[in-house]
């Protein structure tokens, strides 16, 4: 059963298409990452799915309800954590959550107990107004506000943009907890690491279209296997090292003069590594560092959005 379903979703402003026919099918209880550069259409998609924007074409269902014809039912089943921490900065965390609880039509007693529960769970028991919170706390308060009704589907629009690494880790921990409770999460992000860390499946979006979809591992394997990376001590040896690595690589070799890196894709990691090390030693080339690693999602991403091959 799908928690979020979109078919040919389009949104255009005059001639300009912000979304150019997006298909999504997010299964219940999973985390879907929408990955893409600024202006790719991620937030537009989220705004349509959360009933804030009307699509120009296509259709979408969230928790089984149509976003255009049943917006009130959709709103009862979703939580939205937007790009800004949309909390009232002059209210305390407790006052914010009680207010949102009342607006979700909980009784005063229910709102109070739900607020207390969420404050404890997200570690937000600070007596002052929200403007005194750290960036990470504010986002967690925002997350808590989106969880008032324990909605089955939660939308996170760039939940950690602008946060320092520690705050980001805090937010990630909170999201993982929600997911373990069975909440379906649709998350947009520009941080590939974030998608890698949190998402079960990733849809890569560029220029209003889904250009690739799969698990993070599937996407990584799309640009070939492992990368062999050698740092040579003497810049004079760069060309010779590139030749040696080119001999075993399964694709073109990259050479970076400034950092003295030589990189190339390889199929069999251990055998390639041994061959290259032996050949380098025989040629009298000293390596400062040698590594074989999986490609990062960054590389996948650049490959998918800039290679040109994927765009029509």
């Amino acid at each position: 059963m799908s928690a979020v379903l979109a078919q040919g979703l389009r949104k255009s402003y005059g001639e300009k298409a912000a979304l150019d026919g997006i298909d999504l099918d997010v299964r219940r209880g999973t985390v879907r990452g929408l990955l893409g550069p600024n202006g790719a259409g991620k937030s537009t998609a989220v705004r349509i799915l959360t009933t804030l924007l009307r699509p120009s074409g296509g259709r979408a269902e969230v928790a089984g309800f149509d976003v255009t014809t049943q917006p009130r039912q959709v709103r009862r089943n979703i939580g939205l954590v937007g790009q800004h921490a949309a909390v009232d900065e002059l209210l305390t965390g407790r006052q914010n959550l009680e207010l949102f609880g009342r607006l979700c039509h909980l009784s005063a007693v229910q709102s109070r107990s739900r607020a207390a529960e969420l404050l404890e769970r997200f570690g937000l028991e600070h007596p002052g107004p929200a403007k005194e919170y750290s960036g990470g706390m504010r986002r967690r308060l925002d997350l808590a506000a989106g969880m008032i009704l324990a909605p089955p589907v939660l939308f996170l629009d760039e939940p950690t943009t602008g946060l320092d690494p520690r705050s980001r880790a805090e937010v990630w921990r909170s999201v993982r907890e929600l997911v373990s409770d069975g909440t379906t999460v649709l998350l947009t992000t520009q941080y590939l690491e974030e998608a890698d860390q949190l998402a079960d499946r990733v849809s890569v979006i560029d220029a209003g279209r889904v250009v690739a979809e799969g698990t993070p591992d599937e996407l990584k394997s799309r640009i070939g296997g492992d990368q062999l990376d050698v740092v040579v001590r003497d810049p004079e040896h760069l060309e010779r090292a590139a030749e040696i690595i080119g001999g075993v690589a399964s694709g073109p070799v990259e050479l970076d003069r400034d950092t003295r890196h030589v990189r190339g894709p390889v199929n069999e990691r251990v055998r390639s590594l041994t061959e290259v090390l032996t050949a380098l030693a025989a040629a009298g080339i000293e390596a400062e560092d040698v590594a074989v690693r999986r490609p990062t999602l960054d590389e996948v991403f650049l490959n998918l959005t800039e290679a040109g091959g994927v765009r029509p």
Partner: protein
Amino acid sequence: MTVTTLDSPVTRARWALADGWTVARRDLIHWANQPMTVVFGVVFPVVITLAFGYLFGGAVKVPDGADYFAFLMPGMYGMTMLFGLSSTMIAVATDASKGVTDRFRSMPMAPSAVLIGRAIADLLHSVVVLAGLLACGLAVGWRPATLSGTLGAVGLLLLLRFALLWAGMYLGLLTRDPGAVVAVQTLEFPIGFLSNAFVAPGTMPGWLGAVAEWNPLSSTVAAARELFGNPGWGGDSWVARHALPMAVVWPALITVVFFVLSVRRYQRLDR
């Protein structure tokens, strides 16, 4: 947690008011958390009143040779209602720019509650500020004649504030940028000066005086002076002689126009 049912129009209207009150209560909590902002909201018009009354008052010729404060106070009451335009606009634009409006719109609350709540909170705020300024007026020697007249005048002043609420909401939703408020704030004083609030339009150059007479603020202030039993501004044009009805017509007109515009603007946030 809650099961969705299709609500009847009565239930929906009830929720719109209940949710509107919840949204308005948010402002009341702001006041409780930060009482200084409310105090400053009262102090600002008081300072302006004292500045005009004591610094410029001696140089102003009031019709019938009355005391300047007796003439000025109803003008200041009207001016304070005019200042409400930018405070509504700031509140609406800030919520829209910070994503608070979007959060409300994505929640299962009555959509109209966002506007209703703003209207309730801002009217309450104006009542508090007006009460403070009335007390200030009494302290500097201003006196209303009758209680019924006073209530009528206060009612007309709040009617103007109610009308400007919708104008403020429309501008706030239109710009969605608290920075744009400066432009409106800059215009408030000239609009106030170009009325009968501080001086009689008869003392202005002819065409400017005519504009001042037709300023909606002038009608409210003139009607308030009449009801308070304070000295008038001595105009004898049509609009000056019909201050009382015009103090109802102008706000009604502004309300209708901007209510429609701001509701439409709000509904079209999803475009």
